């Protein structure tokens, strides 16, 4: 039996696939430069793709696929986390836009000016090739790997393309505020530009005015890929927005109120996708239409004893979902999630993992993290209570910075003589809150 091979991209050679610093990159140039990069890559099985610019990420992504190497995507960019991910794959290296002194790893800089190399069109990648290993923050303190095969990524992208009728926006541009390294960003800002008729804007606009200018530069129809944090900031900014055709949000729940405000501001539908790193996107809803999620075609949920698993033609095996799901006739409703997980500004992490990282600092004897203001727009802020008699707050903070994504850096951080552990060694939240109250009022500080 011949091995199934699927195209790296569905764009015709003359199609624009991305915009790089105001310049259109046509598919033929993209493939030629990716092939050139592939030829210069060091021999290895895996590489951490750290590129932030979406054109450079796409080049690195495609070059690795063409060369038969695996894209490693870390849960965040904290240097120690990137090093842990690389360490799990001996011989691996990092693909970067520019050398990063704080990373103790072999680095290969993505060069966009390499002489083009001829490449057979269409470029085909074996469906059974491991394309990506994407990592999530695990409760044990070590990032957990999730392998993605090219055939599954292609089939999942086709389901999303059908769900959002992206063919209607062919010739248009995806503009995104999310990084390409997590699953939502990978699916909608890397795989869709390869596998639908849309191009992707290369930059990553941050402030509302940045996004407005990016949308203005991007040829219509424009599809915005974003998160509730950015939607809120942009909707409140009172700017005059260019016509936008569709907004897709994920990474954290969007309120119906914000969705309605955003639909009014941008004059288009705001839709959310549901999924996790293990599954990718598997369902969607138009938020203003109600809480019901509609699974993608070909996705089935099997629920029993309060647990649900997802089955789909783009998943190699049934995947257990972390959410509490209530099935209804036409879809499902979310009723909560595993309490160990926190979601701050759309970034998820296991509290257990974060505490392990604090405990890994030499001199820290005990530590607790409390999520405060969890109902706020940003999803709360972590506060740390740390037993570390020999260390200053500044020293603890300096040690934490390379170990955690910035949104999980605790603020404030208090040093205490001991934590209020109960007989079973657990830390009741009520006790921690009482201790925090005491610290805030100025009593009991070391």
């Amino acid at each position: 039996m011949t091995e199934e091979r699927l195209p790296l991209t569905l764009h015709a050679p003359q199609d624009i696939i991305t915009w790089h610093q105001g310049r259109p990159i046509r598919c033929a140039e993209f493939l030629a430069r990716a092939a050139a990069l592939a030829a210069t890559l060091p021999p290895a099985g895996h590489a951490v793709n750290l590129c932030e610019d979406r054109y450079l990420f796409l080049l690195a992504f495609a070059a690795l696929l063409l060369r038969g190497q695996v894209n490693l995507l870390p849960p965040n960019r904290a240097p120690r986390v990137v090093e842990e991910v690389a360490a799990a794959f001996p011989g691996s290296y990092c693909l970067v836009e520019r050398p990063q002194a704080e990373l103790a790893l072999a680095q290969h800089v993505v060069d966009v000016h390499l002489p083009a190399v001829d490449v057979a069109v269409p470029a085909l990648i074996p469906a059974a090739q491991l394309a990506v290993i994407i990592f999530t923050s695990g409760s044990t303190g070590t990032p957990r790997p999730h392998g993605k095969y090219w055939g599954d990524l292609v089939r999942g992208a086709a389901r999303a393309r059908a769900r959002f009728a992206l063919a209607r926006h062919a010739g248009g541009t995806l503009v995104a505020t999310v990084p390409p390294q997590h699953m939502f960003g990978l699916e909608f800002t890397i795989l869709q530009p390869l596998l639908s008729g849309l191009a992707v804007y290369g930059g990553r606009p941050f402030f509302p005015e940045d996004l407005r200018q990016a949308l203005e530069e991007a040829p219509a129809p424009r599809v915005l890929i974003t998160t509730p944090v950015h939607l809120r900031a942009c909707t409140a900014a009172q700017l005059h927005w260019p016509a936008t055709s569709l907004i897709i949000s994920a990474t954290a729940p969007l309120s119906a109120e914000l969705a309605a405000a955003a639909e009014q501001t941008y004059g288009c539908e705001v839709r959310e996708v549901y999924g996790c790193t293990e599954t990718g996107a598997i369902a969607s809803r138009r938020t203003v239409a109600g809480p019901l999620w509609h699974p993608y075609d070909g996705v089935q949920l099997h629920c029993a004893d309060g647990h649900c698993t997802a089955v789909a033609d783009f998943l190699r095996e049934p995947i257990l979902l972390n959410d509490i799901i209530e099935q209804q006739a036409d879809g499902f409703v979310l009723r909560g999630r595993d309490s160990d997980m926190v979601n701050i500004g759309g970034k998820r992490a296991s509290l257990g993992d974060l505490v392990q990282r604090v405990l890994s600092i030499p001199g820290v004897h005990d530590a607790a993290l409390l999520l405060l203001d969890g109902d706020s727009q940003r999803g709360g802020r972590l506060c740390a209570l740390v037993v570390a008699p020999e260390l200053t707050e500044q020293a603890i903070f300096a040690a934490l910075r390379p170990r955690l994504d910035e949104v999980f850096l605790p603020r404030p951080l208090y040093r205490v003589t001991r934590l209020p552990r109960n007989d079973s060694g657990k830390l009741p939240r009520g006790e921690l809150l009482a201790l925090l109250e005491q610290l805030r009022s100025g009593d009991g500080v070391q």
Partner: protein
Amino acid sequence: MSELTPLEHEVGQLIIDTLNLEDIAVADIEVEAPLFREGLGLDSIDALELALAISRQYGFQLRSDDENNTHIFSSLRALAAHIAAHRVK
């Protein structure tokens, strides 16, 4: 530590109010210390909140590709100077 100007004081209070930094007073902010990471420990989500508050109070939008963007948030003093130079109200 040098004295705060009236605008620096006002921007310091805006940061505290916008981000609900209950345990901090303007007097605690070191005027030359970084606002992000090691200073006040703010993050990118806070930056978005602050950008919104600044646009409402001073009538202009922050931009990432301003050449001196990293400089703008490098300290309360730098942020206040940027606001003084760009405010339209």
